[in-house]
């Protein structure tokens, strides 16, 4: 019995995955290379093309392709990864920002522009999460 990607379908799945990951990889390398070498526009175009092609391949494979490249277990892993990431960010934010607010009120600390941006990004992320959560809860 063959229990690795040695069957035709296994090989097709591997080719799909390599094409998708490869496209994203080329886009990222193009961006980093372009920025690093001073060709920002070329890098950005390479990134756009890589991500667009990768995204299109991913959509095609998931919606129309005959090979299953993702299933309920991967969806479950993604849900758990999102949960742990959000919880980590939430606890980090809750442990950090209130303390900084107190320190700022006491005149011991001043929010810098980058930290303000981080705080706004945090707030926007959790506002968006709350909106999505509320929508899903109402619909379920």
């Amino acid at each position, binding site marked *: *019995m*063959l*229990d690795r*990607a*040695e*069957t035709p*379908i*296994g090989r097709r*799945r591997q080719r799909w995955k390599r094409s998708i990951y490869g496209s994203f990889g080329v886009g990222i390398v193009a961006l980093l290379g372009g920025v690093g070498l001073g060709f920002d526009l070329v890098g950005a175009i390479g990134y756009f093309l890589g991500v667009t092609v990768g995204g299109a391949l991913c959509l095609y494979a998931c919606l129309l392709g005959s090979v*299953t*490249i*993702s*299933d*309920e*277990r*991967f969806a*479950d892993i993604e849900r758990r990864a999102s949960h742990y990431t959000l919880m980590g960010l939430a606890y980090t934010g809750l442990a950090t920002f209130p303390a900084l607010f107190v320190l700022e009120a006491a005149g011991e600390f001043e929010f810098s522009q980058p930290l303000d941006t981080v705080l706004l990004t945090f707030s926007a992320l959790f506002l968006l999460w709350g909106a999505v959560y509320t929508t899903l809860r109402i619909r379920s």
Partner: protein
Amino acid sequence: MKNDLRSRREAEDLSQEELAVAVDVTRQTINAIERERYDPSLELAFDLAAHFECSIEDIFEPEEE
């Protein structure tokens, strides 16, 4: 959850890939279920039971707490 998916699959001389194709999941998911590292959804459990022409309880057994 305990299960005897591997023995049932091997009794039918199926590879993980072949079973995965039959129930429309990836080989890794079949492997994870066999190693009892992933509990399938009810829908997939029904598909597996239908494939082996048995009931879900014949394949899966809840872990005793």
